[in-house]
């Protein structure tokens, strides 16, 4: 398998886009990425579009073909990728694999979603599974995780709220972020309770947005004369669904992290910034542990000591993460890639991580029998 480089990226601001359809958002991101890469639409050989809920929310299928044609791309193989919250990052992984394998030299990956509604509410993920039939909803699942972890390790609600405080602060430095204002622990805990102990500000919002990237082989990169941003690892895994499971330990994250570090030949100590799946506050604390930055039960110390803040030893979610930047489900994985590329190029403005050379992105999607359906981890580095 040969080296693959990300040579162009683009994204829309995330948040409310009532006047735009999926294909409009996708077009914006794709055109930005093409122009950033210096690549013409006709030079793209394969397209990968990550989207989770279009058939349910917009009554639309085959989103990729519509998005790509808006960007002037036709007559190529197009895959529409659905992998819950990993849809965008799985699209990225498929694009990477298509070039790494040698089948194509230039591929385009996009993630696009519209979940924002005026009246808000809990995202409806259907009732196909027994747990959902019995009344489990997404925020409640993460609340079960939180309560189990808190009972084992003595974490408090105030501790958890600090995740939102940090990510909102980061978001206020990011023009692409859905939320632009910092919040306090009091405001987080004072917002309406969704599922105890998670309040509204402990949960990621409904959002619209799109993000895209152009991936190329080494030969094409050299022709384009751009700064090499290498895909050092692109990993995809599913859960174990074994029973008994530990209600607050996502073993699939540990497995995927091991594989990613192995493939990239580096460890957590080499990572300069991480964009991880903070769908709910508890999630980020657990990711510190599963991604190898803290021992089990000790994740919160990284946050309390400000090591995961911008300016700290390993900033997490300097973009604002899902909690502040937003979570258009199928877009999120690609938005993390775009942020990481900007950071590695020194183009991240007020939220720039100094001397960023290695970035890790992590998404986790779906809920199944006390585990998650998918996880993706990508490691990018200046090549």
């Amino acid at each position, binding site marked *: 398998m040969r080296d693959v480089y990300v040579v162009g990226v683009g994204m829309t601001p995330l948040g409310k886009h009532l006047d735009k359809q999926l294909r409009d958002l996708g077009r914006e991101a794709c055109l930005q990425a093409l122009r950033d890469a210096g690549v013409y639409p006709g030079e793209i050989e394969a397209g990968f579009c990550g989207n989770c809920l279009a058939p349910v929310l917009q009554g639309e299928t085959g989103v990729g073909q519509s998005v790509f044609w808006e960007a002037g791309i036709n007559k190529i193989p197009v895959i529409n990728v659905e992998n819950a919250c990993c849809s965008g990052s799985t699209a990225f992984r498929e694009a990477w694999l298509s070039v790494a394998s040698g089948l194509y030299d230039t591929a385009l990956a996009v993630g696009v979603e519209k979940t924002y509604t005026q009246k808000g509410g809990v995202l409806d993920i259907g009732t196909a599974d027994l747990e959902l039939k*019995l009344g489990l909803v997404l925020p409640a699942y993460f609340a079960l995780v939180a309560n189990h972890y808190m009972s084992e390790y003595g974490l408090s609600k105030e501790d958890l709220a600090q995740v939102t405080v940090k990510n909102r602060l980061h978001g206020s430095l990011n023009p692409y972020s859905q939320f632009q204002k910092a919040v306090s622990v009091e405001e987080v805990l004072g917002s309406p309770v969704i599922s105890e102990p998670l309040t509204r500000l402990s949960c990621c919002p409904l959002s619209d947005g799109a993000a895209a990237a152009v991936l190329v082989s080494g030969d094409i990169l050299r022709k384009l004369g751009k700064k090499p941003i290498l895909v050092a690892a692109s990993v995809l895994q599913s859960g174990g669904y074994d029973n008994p499971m530990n209600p607050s330990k996502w073993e699939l994250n540990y497995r995927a992290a091991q594989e990613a570090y192995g493939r990239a030949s580096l460890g957590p100590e080499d990572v300069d910034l991480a964009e991880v799946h903070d769908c709910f506050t508890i999630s980020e604390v657990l990711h510190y542990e599963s991604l190898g930055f803290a021992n089990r039960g000790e994740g919160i110390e990284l946050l309390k000591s400000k090591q995961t803040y911008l300016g700290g030893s390993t900033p997490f979610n300097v973009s604002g993460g899902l909690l502040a930047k937003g979570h258009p489900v199928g877009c999120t994985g690609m938005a993390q890639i775009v942020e990481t590329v900007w950071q590695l190029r020194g183009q991240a403005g007020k939220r720039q991580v100094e001397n960023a050379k290695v970035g890790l992105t992590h998404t986790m999607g779906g809920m199944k029998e006390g585990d998650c359906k998918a996880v993706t981890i990508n490691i990018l580095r200046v090549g």
Partner: protein
Amino acid sequence: MEKGQEIVPIDKAAIRPLPGENQGWCLIGGRCLSCGRYFFPKREICPQCFDRGRVEETVLSCKGILVSYTVIHRAIDKNVPYAVGYVKVPENMVIFAPLEIREFSDLSIGMEMEVAFSEEETADKLKWMVYKFRPAS
């Protein structure tokens, strides 16, 4: 029971009526005859043993320990607030269940629970038999 108003189990692989007339219901799962592993709900094959084993239906214990819970305040098409949780049964499995409780503040991790069954009617007027866990009496 009126004809056409049959009560359907929420999942035939998770619960079934006890034998006899009006004897109530029980939780069921699967057990691999080859490796002895339990599954909930009952499933077709053992992932480990595959055709070297066979998964047969087994009645599960009706008691367990509460390992986590939450009180839901925002949901979809259900009357909030209501409580759900994870219960660990002696067959070494953690089972998701709605919780039946008079006062939410009575819930605590580690408390002993017992399974209960009740009828629920969904919006489309279908009647389901569902399982729940409540504090052991």
